[in-house]
């Protein structure tokens, strides 16, 4: 009976598998998997998956809700937002305009982002065609200085 090297069985291997599982699920369904679903798919105890999620969150790319479920797997939001990215017949939520554009960038697909003006709430649709953003009118505003982004990532 052989044994797998530590690189395939240790926490790092679990983290990599979990990370890819989460992204695959979001890409397929448009929704983030529940922690219990992750554990079932990985055939791992819930506590191991929860520990792996906490490690993934150290990079800020993943953020959990107070109930322990995913809030964000950057650039995807696990909860409904006012920033939607669409490619083909699928759509996903982003937590902000940077992330919504980031979804199309991560997919390397043309598509569109549906958002609205932060001031007057009028709809703004941004189109990406042949890898280029078509719109020129509009501006993106960061309210929080870069060094403070992760002090309160929900507000940022």
């Amino acid at each position, binding site marked *: 009976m052989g044994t797998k090297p530590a690189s395939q069985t240790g926490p790092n291997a679990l983290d990599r598998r979990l990370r890819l599982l989460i992204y695959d699920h979001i890409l397929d369904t448009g929704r983030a998997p529940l922690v219990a679903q992750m554990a079932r798919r990985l055939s791992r105890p819930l506590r191991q998956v929860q520990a792996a999620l906490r490690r993934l969150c150290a990079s800020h790319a993943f953020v959990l809700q107070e109930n322990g479920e995913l809030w964000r797997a950057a*650039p995807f939001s696990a909860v409904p937002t006012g920033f939607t990215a669409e490619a083909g017949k699928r759509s996903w939520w982003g937590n902000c305009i940077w992330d919504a554009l980031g979804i199309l960038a991560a997919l390397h697909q043309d598509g569109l982002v549906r958002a609205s003006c932060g001031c007057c709430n009028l709809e703004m649709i941004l189109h990406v065609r042949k890898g280029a953003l078509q719109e020129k*009118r509009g501006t993106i*505003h*960061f309210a929080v200085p870069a060094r403070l982004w992760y002090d309160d990532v929900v507000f940022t």
Partner: protein
Amino acid sequence: MLLFRSEQHVDRWCRQWNRPRGGMLSLTQGWKLARLWYGDRLSPSWRGKTAEEAQALFTEIGLVGEFWQLGG
């Protein structure tokens, strides 16, 4: 990070929420930031950027100055 129709709308939002104007990007800069930041995110071998790499990326896009300085 919010999207606005114009800088005037940003200023109106800042007044409404009693906040100073922060950092502004053109849509072209925003798309470039999205591609550079997230272009490799779905790769199995993705790793987070170091602070130095992130700062260099901001500089490449023209995001320079105190507002865009990451913590040490």
